[in-house]
């Protein structure tokens, strides 16, 4: 066993070389087996919408605000097709540009803009749908970064979004009960620092 103690190791250009840029330096996961229903409202700012807190993915022990978070959810959801899914980072609505707030978006676009939208499937009563929600951003801060999902009706009405169950039943033949999971990787960025514990 041997150890080398130093503050940093740099290449001949002065760049920090360990951990290698692009490496995964932190990983956090979530799993949710509950079967709640959420009411998704229509024309309302996402920050005032009902947040699906049960599906929160928290990046823990983030090392540098410039590092990249790659978050991915497997969602088992049943809802009407006119529904969008958005991501809030620490309570603030984000769009699909890296770390950019969408606060300047016209308010009348709030309800029909999202990262993914519900499927126009053949039946909402049985067999929930399966979604992959992928969100990538700069961490923006160190410590813990909370990533939440907001479901929003894409029309003037509102509707219930069921997690891990169908509209028609909380579990029986042909009415499947599923699981939501998620994982977030922190990736060391060349403008960040990638110390690991």
């Amino acid at each position, binding site marked *: 066993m041997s150890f080398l103690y130093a503050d940093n190791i740099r290449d001949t250009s002065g760049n920090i070389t360990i951990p290698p840029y692009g490496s995964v330096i932190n*990983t956090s996961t979530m799993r949710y087996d509950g079967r709640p229903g959420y009411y998704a409202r229509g024309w309302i700012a996402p920050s005032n919408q009902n947040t699906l807190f049960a599906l929160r993915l928290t990046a823990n022990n983030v090392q540098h605000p410039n590092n990249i978070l790659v978050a991915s959810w497997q969602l088992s959801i049943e809802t009407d097709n006119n529904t969008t899914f958005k991501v809030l980072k620490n309570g603030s609505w984000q769009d699909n540009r890296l770390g950019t707030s969408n606060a300047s978006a016209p308010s009348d676009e709030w309800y029909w803009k999202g990262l993914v939208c519900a499927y126009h499937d053949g039946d909402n009563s049985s067999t929930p749908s399966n979604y992959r929600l992928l969100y990538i951003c700069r961490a923006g801060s160190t410590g813990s970064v909370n990533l939440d999902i907001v479901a929003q009706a894409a029309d003037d009405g509102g509707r219930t979004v069921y997690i891990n169950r169908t509209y028609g039943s909380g579990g029986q033949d042909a009415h499947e009960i599923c699981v939501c999971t998620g994982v977030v990787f922190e990736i060391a960025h060349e403008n960040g620092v990638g110390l690991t514990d």
Partner: protein
Amino acid sequence: MSSELRVNDIYNLAGKRLSASGVGNVVSSDFTQFCEPYLVYTQNSGNGTRFNALSLSVTPKKSSNILVMQWVITGEVSWNEVLLIHRNDDLVTDGGQQGFNNEVGNNRWSGLLGGWYDNNNDSTPASWKLTYHCVANTTNRLYFTPAVRSSQGNEDWWRFNRAWASNGQGNYERTCSIGYLFEIGT
């Protein structure tokens, strides 16, 4: 002139490990890809039928390490199906890491994912996005395999990487199923 320095670990002056084999890092991985058409008979009892071509394996470096797996699985199926996870050829039943919904328990309508209630099962396959993670709990070799089970009174088929009606032709797409496993250091 190049130079090379080899050590077991590198720490900073505060005692934090800097090397890429530490906490939170990907310390090993496995990948799978399968592009052939494949039929799996799905019974409506028991613990599901494995799709062995999509197995991912790992020999954990530490029993406390986290295993993260993701698959994109394509195919066509009647909607009344669930997808489960087996570990070393058995349904995972460990508390909090079950290969099905742990709130309703292991019955035929409980899984990690449901089938796909699309508007046409004859042509154009669907895709499922599966994420499963667990604690290794061993340093012996593990392998994880998606399995399928009918969630209704009838038994059925799950057609992977193809449409229901054809192995591949115009309007009947042929696709691939892909997965990866990351072992995360703790």
